[in-house]
C-alpha cells in the first residue's frame, strides 16, 4: 500500500479558511446569487429562431410539397382538402429540425417558441392541417420574463411582461418561378399536369384532332412546381416570373 503524505496546513491558515467559508455562507444567506427560474410563473426569454412547435398559415400555403419532401424524419404528410394539399405533422416523428420552415417559399409554415407541450394520447400527436393552423390551446401562468446576463458574473434580468411565443416570419426573398413548357415536342397530352395543379392554372384545349393546346395561367400559377415534378416526359420547366411576363404568354402545343 502506498501512503500519500499530505502536507498539514498550518493552524492560522486553516483558521483563516474556516472564517472565509463562514463569511461566504453569511454573505450568500443575506444576498444569494440564485439564478433559478420559477418556470411556470416565470419564463426564460427565448431567441426568435427557437425551434418549437410549428404553425401553418393555410392562406399562404401554395401546396408545393417541399416541406414533406425535405422532412428528414418523414413526419410531414400532405392532406387533401378540397382540391388542394396541406401539410400535417406527426409529432411522434418530428425532430423539430425546422428544415420545413427553411424550405417553405412563402413562409406559410411558421416557427414558434412553444416547447412545453402535452398531448392527451399518441393518436392526438398526429396533427392534420386544421389543427396546425392557429395558436394551440395554452394555459400560461407566467407574468415575468427572465433573461440571463452573461457579462461578468452571471446575473438575471427580470421584466414584468409576458412574451409572445408566436414568431412572425416575413416571406423569404427568393426568385419567383412559374411553370412553362420548355420542350413542347415532348408532350404526350397525358394531362397529369392538369390534374395535379392545385391552382387549376393549367388547361387543355382540343384544337383539332392532331393538336392539343396547353395553356398556363401565370396569374394563377404560384410556382409550386408540382406539375414539373409530375410530368413524365419533362416537357415543363420553371421560368423566372419576371422574364416570362416580359416575353408574354406562351401557349404550347403537342
Amino acid at each position, binding site marked *: 500500500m502506498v501512503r500519500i503524505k499530505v502536507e498539514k496546513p498550518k493552524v492560522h491558515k486553516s483558521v483563516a479558511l474556516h472564517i472565509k*467559508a*463562514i463569511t*461566504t*455562507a453569511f454573505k*450568500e*444567506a443575506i444576498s*444569494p*446569487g*440564485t*439564478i*433559478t427560474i*420559477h418556470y411556470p410563473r416565470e419564463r426564460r426569454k427565448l431567441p426568435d429562431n427557437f425551434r418549437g412547435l410549428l404553425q401553418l398559415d393555410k392562406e399562404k400555403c401554395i401546396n408545393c410539397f417541399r416541406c414533406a419532401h425535405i422532412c428528414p424524419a418523414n413526419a410531414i404528410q400532405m392532406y387533401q382538402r378540397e382540391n388542394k394539399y396541406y401539410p400535417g405533422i406527426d409529432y411522434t416523428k418530428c425532430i423539430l429540425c425546422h428544415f420545413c420552415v427553411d424550405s417553405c417559399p412563402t413562409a406559410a409554415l411558421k416557427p414558434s417558441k412553444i416547447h412545453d407541450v402535452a398531448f392527451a394520447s399518441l393518436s392526438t400527436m398526429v396533427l392534420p392541417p386544421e389543427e396546425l393552423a392557429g395558436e394551440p390551446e395554452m394555459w400560461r401562468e407566467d407574468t415575468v420574463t427572465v433573461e440571463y446576463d452573461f457579462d461578468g458574473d452571471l446575473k438575471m434580468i427580470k421584466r414584468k411582461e409576458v412574451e409572445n411565443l408566436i414568431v412572425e416570419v416575413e416571406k423569404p426573398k427568393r426568385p419567383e418561378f412559374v411553370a412553362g413548357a420548355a420542350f413542347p415536342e415532348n408532350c404526350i397530352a397525358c394531362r397529369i399536369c392538369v390534374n395535379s395543379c392545385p391552382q387549376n392554372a393549367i388547361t387543355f384545349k382540343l384544337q383539332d384532332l392532331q393538336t392539343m393546346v396547353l395553356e398556363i395561367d401565370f396569374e394563377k400559377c404560384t410556382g409550386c412546381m408540382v406539375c414539373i415534378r409530375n410530368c413524365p416526359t419533362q416537357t415543363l420547366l420553371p421560368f423566372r416570373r419576371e422574364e416570362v411576363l416580359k416575353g408574354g404568354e406562351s401557349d404550347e402545343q403537342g
Partner: protein
Amino acid sequence: MVDVSGIVSGIVEKIFAALTANMVNIPILEPLINKLLQIPLVNLVVAFILWKPAFVILFVPGLLAVTVVLLIMIWWERKLTARIQWRVGPKEVSRRTGGIIQTLADGMRYMFQEVIIHRDAHKLYFLQLPILSFIPVLLPILLIPAGTIYAIRSPYAIQIAVALTALLPIFILGIGWSANNRFAFIGTVREAFLYVAYEIPLMIAVLSMVLLYKSGDPFVIVEKQWIPGIFMNPIAFIAFLIGMVMAAGRLPFDISEADQEIAFGPFVEYSGIIFGLVMGIAYEKLYLLSLIAAILFFGGWSGPEIAFLGELSYAIWLFLKAFVLMGFIVMVRAIYGRYRLDQALKFGWSSLLTFSLIGFFISAGWVIWLG
C-alpha cells in the same frame, strides 16, 4: 355509613388547592382562566395544565416548544441551506409564506403511511425505542427552568440535564441493534465510536462553566452573568458549540446517519410516523443542548420583561435565545462537507479535547482571579 362523596370532594378540593398554589401567572389570559376555574371538573384540568411542573413539560420549554422547533427548524434549515447554495428550497406548500408548513405536510404524510416492520427486526425494541427516546428528551426539561417556571430546583441541575441528554445515543444504539440491518449496524458502530469522542469535551466545557459560576443551579448561573458567559470564556463556548454540533448529529459530523453513504444508518428500516419520530431525535437533542447553552453562555432568561405575558416572558426569552442559536447551528450544514469517521474521531480526541481543557483552565483562572 361513610360519606363517600364528602371524602372524594374533600380530596378533590385539596388537590385543587395544591395545584392552584403553584400556578403560572399570565396576565393576558387571566380573565379566561378565572372563568374556566369556576366550572367544576374543567377547573381541575385547567389547574393541572397551569401547574408549573406540568406546564414546563407540556408547554415551554417542553412538548409544545419541541413541536414548534421540529416544525419550524427543519423548514428553516432547508430554506437557509437552499438560499446559501443558490437553490430555492421548500416552496410549493403555502407559497405566500415560503413553504413554512412544509414540515407539517411531511408529518401528515408520515401519519398516513404504513409502518413496516421487516422480518429480521426485533419487533418489541424496534417499535418501543423511538417512543421511549422521549424519556431522555423530556426528563432534562424538568431540570431546565425558565425564570420562575420550573419543576425541579437542584444545585446540580445543569450536570444532571447534560448527563440525561447523553443518554440519547444509548437509545440510538438500541434502535440500530433492533433494526438488524447491515447499514443500521454500520451506523450504530459509528455512533458508538463517536459517542465518547464528543461527549467528553462537551461535558468538560459544561463543567468549566459550572466551575466559573461555582454552581450548577441555573438560577445562580443566570444571576452571576453580569456579562454573558460567552465573553467570560469564549474557548469553552467554541468547544461546547462544536461538541453540540457533533452530539446533535448535524452535518459535518452526521457520520452515523450519513444518508448518502449508509442511508440514515440506524434509522434505515423505519417508515411512517415512527421514522418521523426517530428523525426528530437529533433535533430534540439539538434543542436541549441549545437550551443549556442559552443558560450557560447567553444569560438564560434574562431580558426585558414583557408585562402582559407575566411569567411566560422569561420562558419566551429562553426559548428565543435557544431558537436563534439553533438557527445558526443548522446553517453549518451549508458550509462544511461531512468528515470521515477517523477524521472526526481524531478531531474529537485531540483538538476538541484540548480546546475544552483550555476552556477549563480559563475558568479556573477566572475563579482564582475573582476569588
